[in-house]
């Protein structure tokens, strides 16, 4: 039994991704055990999102092996896709649909039978306190409501592992607290493995059981929070993090997507 518990649900071996010769992820290896609460930390442009994209079948690795829930994202795409749920860094909801319709759409894509789908949607929307707003178009939702809806949507097909890419970015402390409470509950009650990234070190320190820090595409430290603090002789995770990654601010060239995002933010701001 104890042997089974230690079975890794994510195995990454010598993973590398190059974009036109530029190395985004450089020969990284790590394992995440079933039921773990795993934080993947690193400065902007360190390779966090690229790694998540490879784990979630959105991007092919240049080199290396990945197993998610025992399946290979290259040859067993659909099995991998059924195994995980994801909350992306940016909203991926359809704003012109209602919350319920967004859930329904997701449920059909994951081939959840109609009756089960209906029950689960209600259950999840109640958990994230959106059931009484289910028929509102998502475009009138606030940032926090959208994030809660995305979390509910990501859980609809009962994934074994849940990826959250900066799930609390730009949210107020109340909403952040609430979101982490949901996720914690999920991990505790259903042993869902959590894989998250964040720039808020106090969140990582409070929530994560294990941590990996990635910088310039390489994993530079890995272990429990306690180990990282001991290793760097620091008192908080934030201090340990800064000791490991340095204090230089990272500049990233904006992609066309970033520019579009920026424009959209300005556009939305003007509407309000």
């Amino acid at each position, binding site marked *: 039994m104890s042997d089974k518990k230690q079975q890794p649900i994510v195995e990454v071996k010598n993973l590398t991704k190059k974009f036109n010769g530029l190395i985004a992820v450089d020969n990284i290896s790590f394992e995440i055990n079933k039921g773990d609460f795993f934080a993947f930390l690193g400065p902007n442009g360190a390779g966090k999102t690229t790694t998540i*994209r490879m784990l*979630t*079948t*959105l*991007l092919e690795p240049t080199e290396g092996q990945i197993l998610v829930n025992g399946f290979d994202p290259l040859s067993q*795409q*659909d099995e991998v*896709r*059924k195994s*995980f749920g*994801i909350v*992306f860094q*940016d*909203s*991926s*909801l*359809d*704003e*012109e*649909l209602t919350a319920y*319709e967004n859930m*329904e*759409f*997701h449920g*059909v*894509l*994951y*081939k959840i039978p109609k009756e089960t789908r209906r029950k689960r949607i209600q259950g999840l929307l109640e958990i994230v306190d959106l059931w009484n707003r289910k028929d509102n*178009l998502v475009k009138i939702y606030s940032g926090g409501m959208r994030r809660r809806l995305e979390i509910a*949507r990501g859980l609809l097909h009962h994934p074994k592992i849940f990826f959250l890419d900066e799930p609390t970015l730009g949210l107020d402390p109340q909403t952040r607290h609430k979101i982490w409470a949901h996720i914690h509950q999920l991990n505790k009650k259903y042993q869902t493995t959590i894989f998250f990234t964040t720039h808020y070190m106090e969140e990582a320190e409070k929530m994560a059981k294990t941590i990996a820090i990635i910088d310039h595409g390489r994993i530079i430290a890995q272990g429990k929070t306690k180990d990282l603090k001991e290793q760097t002789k620091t008192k908080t995770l934030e201090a340990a993090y800064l000791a490991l990654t340095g204090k230089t601010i990272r500049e990233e060239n904006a992609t*066309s*997507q970033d*520019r*579009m*995002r920026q424009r*959209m933010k300005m556009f939305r701001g003007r509407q309000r």
Partner: protein
Amino acid sequence: MIDVIYIMWLRQIKRYWRSKSRIIGSIGQPLLFLVALGFGLGPMFEKAGGGNYINFLTPGVISQAILFMAVFSGIELIWDRQFGFLKATLVAPVSRLEIVLGRVIGGATIAAFQGLIVLFLTLLVGFRPQNLTAFPLAVWLMFLIALLYSALGTAIASLMKDFHGFQLIMNFLVAPTFFLSGAIFPLNNAPRLIQTISYINPLTYGVDGLRQVLAGITYFGLTIDILVLSIVGTVLLIIGSYLFSKIEA
């Protein structure tokens, strides 16, 4: 498979139906063409022995409404891509073919419906269809045109990363497609160059087919029209599906 295509289709329909400004906005241009050209050039056209110009022009402006709406709903893919919705569908355990088919058919349905609205409005302006029994055939032709251009829009959108190229496509592809399709003038007496371009323009066959069905005027004959639309549409659908399957989100 059919569930996924259906839900993709339904999403497009709901989005369309909820944006009334888009529906009204895209009716404006074809009607403007019909009124300005129809009443402006009509008397000259008739004096030159071309017959009733409104009857000649109506299938053309219907095609224009379909063309714009179909290309636009295909291009909307860029929007989904920029704002993340596409990513959510791409990590779901469904094939890209199902996604693209749902999208293209959804876009085509909207565009054909838009054509239908324009057809009804032209009746108010004075268009009189040749006979009403041809109506189902007209709807089928509209859907064929819509399918072809929805697939083309999707194919183009699969190659584009953002909206920078959008204006380029509207000005250098969509507008010439309309103006050089025989929609506003007969091809019989057109200069050789214009004729040649029209022959390789699929919309020409769409306009000609609709004109045969609605106004009883044809240049190629209905069989050739339907054949060309079906073949080009299928080829574009295959190309579009292939390009879509290569998208990296």
